[in-house]
């Protein structure tokens, strides 16, 4: 029995409570343990990824109950990849948060952070549909805490909306799971696959309802239009480094769609035909476009990047909605890219807002303007999918994968026009932030203008640091920049090693489109 499978879930689950119980009053110790846990998590994830890369699917039977009666963890290439991505991102964000001192601005940050990781990783590893729900809840509730970390009126209000919207999603999840259970009598995903395949076609209606509700749940997480409305306000009002971590959360939705709709409701399954394909593609394309328009139409940093993240989700889901091995290959590559890119830009956005507030306006030159400008430029390149960073390659992969699709012209047109609009938006923001400021000298700053923006920058709360405006002591420490450059390095590596990366993605896609292996690994040779 390979206990490594449960390690990435148990580790944060132990470190979280440990931090609260033992070192709650020692910031340095909290940081050390949190960081150490994250580093260890990366190490574990690397081991798991190495194990998964052989192509063998590993199963961990919790409580020693075999599937489908107990809950199993399943490690395949996809889950290993997502776990690794999560832990790497977590490490970087953790560095940033510590470096920028965001963790000091509210209570219990590191414990919540650990639990957040536990939830995300648990969701990636589980092989049980209801357990997926449970871990969705774990990651959600931790995200509620992180989202309102350090407080503030607007953040609370946005937090309220975020929670309510997601609670509706969770409710839908239960409706879906109930329906699936009532029809099939099982919760294990592999078992579901087996049973769904045996249900006669003339008895499809109720199962279809369950399947589509499940898809909608994941679509909410993945921020597919018109279920994306939770995202802009929550990401924009969350502490931006947290939003950087949240870049992986939308991917959980995408992951779940990919998992369920290759394993259980595969593209060849007649029973659920037309449920995913019919609307997901158009919806993904509209999502992409709405995100792009949002980038151009944003006048605040957080919102800008949030819409950027929506665009990238649109692109990602476009690739997924192809439901072909090529599409999934592209989607997986793009998943890694867009996670790193969105996180990167969120961190840069935080660097900016920490120095001059949340509005995208020209103000006087900020400290470290040059360095930040370089980072912003790189982040914008990454997120808009311009060369030389991996976004361009990812986008080309998506376009290439779509070439045999019925909607190929729509896909190409939307992806390309969406890129253009995003580029325009980013260029506008960048030139306002980093260039126009140079035409404003100290004496030229118009106090009345500053006054005008006041209500939007500074809410009635006292802690100005939480909400931007120019933090008077916004002194640079190295760590935030290290974090940013680490993500940039990740993007560069993903570009340079696009070959191996895409090869892994290809193998993963192949694994996903051969669900028999997965089913056999989980249920053994016997079919019930």
């Amino acid at each position, binding site marked *: *029995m390979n206990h490594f499978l449960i390690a990435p879930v148990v580790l944060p689950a132990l470190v979280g409570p440990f931090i609260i119980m033992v070192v*709650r009053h020692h910031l340095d110790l909290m940081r050390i343990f949190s960081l150490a846990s994250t580093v260890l998590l990366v190490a574990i994830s690397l081991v798991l990824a190495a194990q998964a890369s052989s192509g063998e699917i590993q199963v961990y039977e919790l*409580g020693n109950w075999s599937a489908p009666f107990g809950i199993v963890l399943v490690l395949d290439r996809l889950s290993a990849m997502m776990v690794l991505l999560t832990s790497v991102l977590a490490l970087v964000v953790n560095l940033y948060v510590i470096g920028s001192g965001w963790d000091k601005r509210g209570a219990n940050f590191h414990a919540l952070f650990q639990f957040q990781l536990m939830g995300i990783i648990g969701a990636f590893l589980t092989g049980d549909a209801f357990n997926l729900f449970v871990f969705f809840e774990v990651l959600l509730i931790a995200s509620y805490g992180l989202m309102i970390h350090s407080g503030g009126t607007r953040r609370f209000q946005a937090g309220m909306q975020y929670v309510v919207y997601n609670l*509706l999603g969770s409710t839908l999840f239960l409706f879906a799971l109930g329906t699936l259970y009532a029809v099939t*009598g099982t919760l294990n995903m592999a078992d579901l696959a087996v049973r769904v395949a045996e249900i006669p*076609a003339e008895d499809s209606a*109720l199962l*279809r309802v369950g399947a589509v509700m499940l898809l909608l749940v994941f679509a909410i997480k993945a921020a597919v239009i018109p279920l994306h409305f939770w995202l802009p306000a929550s990401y924009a009002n969350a502490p931006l480094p947290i939003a950087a971590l949240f870049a992986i959360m939308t991917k959980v939705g995408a992951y779940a769609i990919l998992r369920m709709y290759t394993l259980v409701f595969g593209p060849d399954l007649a029973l659920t035909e037309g449920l995913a394909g019919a609307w997901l593609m158009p919806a993904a394309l509209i999502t992409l476009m709405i995100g792009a328009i949002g980038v151009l139409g944003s006048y605040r940093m957080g919102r800008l990047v949030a819409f950027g993240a929506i665009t990238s989700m649109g692109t990602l889901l476009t690739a997924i909605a192809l439901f072909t091995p090529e599409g999934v290959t592209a989607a997986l590559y793009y998943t890694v890219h867009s996670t790193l890119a969105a996180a990167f830009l969120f961190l840069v956005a935080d660097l900016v807002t920490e120095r001059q507030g949340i509005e995208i306006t020209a103000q006087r030159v900020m400290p470290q303007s040059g360095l930040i400008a370089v980072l912003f430029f790189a982040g914008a390149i990454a997120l808009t999918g311009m060369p*030389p960073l991996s976004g361009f*390659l990812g986008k080309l992969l998506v376009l290439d994968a779509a070439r045999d699709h019925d909607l190929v012209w729509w896909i190409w047109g939307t992806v390309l026009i969406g890129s253009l609009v995003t580029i325009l938006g980013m260029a506008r923001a960048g030139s306002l932030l980093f260039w126009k400021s140079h035409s404003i000298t100290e004496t030229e700053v118009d106090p009345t203008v500053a006054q005008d923006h006041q209500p939007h920058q500074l809410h009635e709360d006292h802690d100005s640091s939480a909400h931007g405006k120019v933090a008077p002591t916004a002194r640079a420490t190295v760590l935030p920049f290290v974090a940013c450059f680490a993500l940039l390095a990740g993007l560069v590596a993903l570009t340079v090693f696009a070959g191996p990366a895409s090869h892994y993605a290809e193998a993963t896609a192949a694994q996903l489109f051969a669900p028999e292996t997965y089913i056999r690994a989980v249920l053994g040779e016997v079919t019930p």
Partner: protein
Amino acid sequence: MSLFLIAALPFLGAVFPALLIRAGRNASASAAGLTTFLAFAGLLLHAPAIFRGEVIQVGVDWLPALGLNANFFLDGLGFLFASMILGIGLLIILYARFYLSREDPMGQFYTYLLLFQGAMVGITLSDNILLLLVFWELTSLSSFLLIGYWKHLPEGRQGARMALAVTGSGGLAMIGGMMILGNITGSYDLSVILQNKELIQASPLYLPALVLILVGCFTKSAQFPFHFWLPHAMAAPTPVSAYLHSATMVKAGIFLMARLWPVLAGTPEWFYIVATTGLVTMLLGAVIALFKDDLKALLAFSTVSHLGLITMLLGFGTKIAAVTAVFHIINHATFKAALFMSAGIVDHETHTRDINRLGGLRHLMPVTATIAIVAALSMAGIPPFNGFLSKEMMLEETVHTHWGSSAYLVPGLALLAALFSAAYSFRFIGHVFLGQPRNDYPAKPHDPGFGMWAGPALLMILVVLIGLFSATLVGPLVAIAAGAVIGGAELPYYSLKLWHGLTPALYMSGVAVAGGLLLLLLHRPLMAAWNAALRPEAKQIFDRLMRGLTKLSQLITDGLHNGAITRYAFVMMLFIIALSYYAYSSGTIQAPTRLAQTEGPIALIAWFCLIVATLAVVAKHRQRQLSLVLIGVVGLVVSLGFNYLSAPDLALTQLSVEVVTMILLLLALNFMPKDSPIESPLWVRLRDGGIAVIAGLGAATLIYMLMLRDFSMPSISEFHLANSYKGGGGTNVVNVILVDFRGYDTFGEIIVLGIAALVIYALTEAVLGTRVRAYLLNRKPDMPQAGDAHPMMMVVATRVMMPLALMVAAYIFFRGHNLPGGGFIAGLITAIALLMQYMASGFSWASERQRMFYHGTIGSGVLIAAATGLGSWFGGVPFLTSAFGYIHWPPLDEFEWATAALFDLGVFLAVVGAVLLALESLARFAWQPGISSEHAMDINPARDDLEQAQLQAQAPGKHPGLQAPGPHDPSTKGEV
């Protein structure tokens, strides 16, 4: 030198200038120059092979899944362009070293420049169209940086963004075109694509591919109607302009048209699109250039015009036209770079670029004047300079070209363009350098240092030499480059020489020069007419378009995401309902397999209560406390229902959760408004009601249908029922599922609770850290308060009730594995028991007496659960594997132990901690000075009488009843 290295060198070198700038401007410039020189030298090393007609190829797989390979190749065309880019690049680096002032961040400049140079070299060397796209987009990005280099100039920012918008969109169109091209041929490698002319031109996708690629080329090369960005890019420092608009950026489009000429050209579509665009651009650019007063703007539009010329030539699709195009590319690069640099010198020295403020510079800066005049004459097409040669060949070609049925259209317009071209060249010479020196220049001009004019001077020499000895000097180069353009086919007959005899082209040249002179003479009235004429100002249109787009985007974005979650949720419901209905209606359903079970009046009455209470909640939801009471009814009935339907565990859980939730809500409601106003208009309420009813009907129908049908296969719970006792050691199957079969779910569930408590705590800290704290401290109750906050009877009853309740909790806890109950319910009951104490004596009094560390309680709960799970590792079995057994200690009977109980203890602790932490947070909100009482109950005659007696002993004569506020007055203990 490997092509990899040549392509990489500028990028590698780009690092140095920015780093070395601390070592000085010379170091920075030298690093840039050296890198460029190395790359150039490396390129030239390949010259012998290239001139032998060889093609050099290197390649490595990059993204094989896509067919994107890092393949480079060098042929004549690539060689020509790469040499121009690197050669002129060298001159520009030298020139810029002297041109830029001390205030300009030179390191940045050279870094951007090298990035740009690398991207351009990459384009010319790419053997893979996707790779080419990478470099293509990189040129857009790096030119964005270069054009916006002077951050403080608004024109710079706008120009940069405009260039990015136009070339960027073109680039994206080109991606589409290239993808199509790759799809047609099955490969993205250029060398493969170039072999497939028939395949491509026969494909139905030929036209879309062609159009998309051409959009990319035209935007990059500033062809009509995309020409407008180029003049605005002139806000860049002149070295940039010189580089971008002579040798590089704008030539990228030309390069690509030439590159793909073998497979795309030769069709009518190609001819009509490319040649026509080129022709129109050539004419339009020339006309506008004549009326520009800004030196650089004049040159910019002349560039537009000349690019149109080259495009037109490529568009003719004939081999000889292609040769001419290649030749003009070389010529234009030389004279235009020289002209820009000269204009830059003029600007640099006189501090103005306004032609109206210049004149007579021939006397003040003779060197510059010589260079500029020679280059401008070449531009005008005056022999013996090189511009004349290629323009002559061009005119010759137009004569042989029919547009539709018209034989005169092309030559006629070309002649007109040549005429205007001569005119603006003459104006450039005449109005800037000739005439009398003036005394009102913004700065006193004189020739600059050698470093600055060395570059243009070299180019001027080339202009002259190529004009005189074209065949010798550039003949081979033209041959190999043109050979590559026409795809290795045999070169047509042509000769590069000044005198071709009395050809129609010569007459046309003559007419052009004469006409040009005439136009210059008439310049003043023409200018007035031009200024009076109404014409579309591209920049304004573009600006308006961009502003409109931005505004529209803001409108759409803010309109869609208006912050109204009521609408978001409505849309969500609508979508869910619609899709679910679609899923249902597009499937088929069989007849029910189960019979509905008829029930008696009791169930009916419970159902009735539920319905009425639920409807009442909706109807009375504005009275908040009442709706809480009604929700309590709903919860009660639901619990009864669970019990009735064989789910005692659920009933217990539901009941206890119900009460705790209600108390949390009451605690919160204390701070909030007690009523909700009517806000939604009637139609909104009807709309919401409508969607709610539909959703409810959907849910009801779904579950009704499900309940009347059997599982399609036996449920896995049969295994649970069969193995609960054997394998899990418990007879309460629900509990065994919770702590054993699906203990992992429960583990997640207590983590959720723990997190909830952490969030609540953090949130409380955050709220109390703001001015809300002051508000809370000064908050007056919004309802009148009664006295006797901690009634004696309640306190006394609680003293007995709480231990009893804890006993019940223990009972529920220990029997849970076999009978209804378990850690969660026990935890809630314990919490409720403590809550009873809080309600009786107040939170502060109670918690002072028993300092519970709630964080620790939760943490230990989670840790115990996790440790129980981990314990199974020692048995070599997976996480959360349970064990149970029996112990017999005489004289006691045998009793059972199970690790599941330990796990349940974890659950218990987490629940208790979470609930109490939440309560504590609310108590902290409510805390006000003096709220905490030192006594359990406000009124206690035994205690008060004793105190009274003591007090009277100290101060006799006071009647206890009249004394207020005395020590026994509740006010001194309860509130204040």
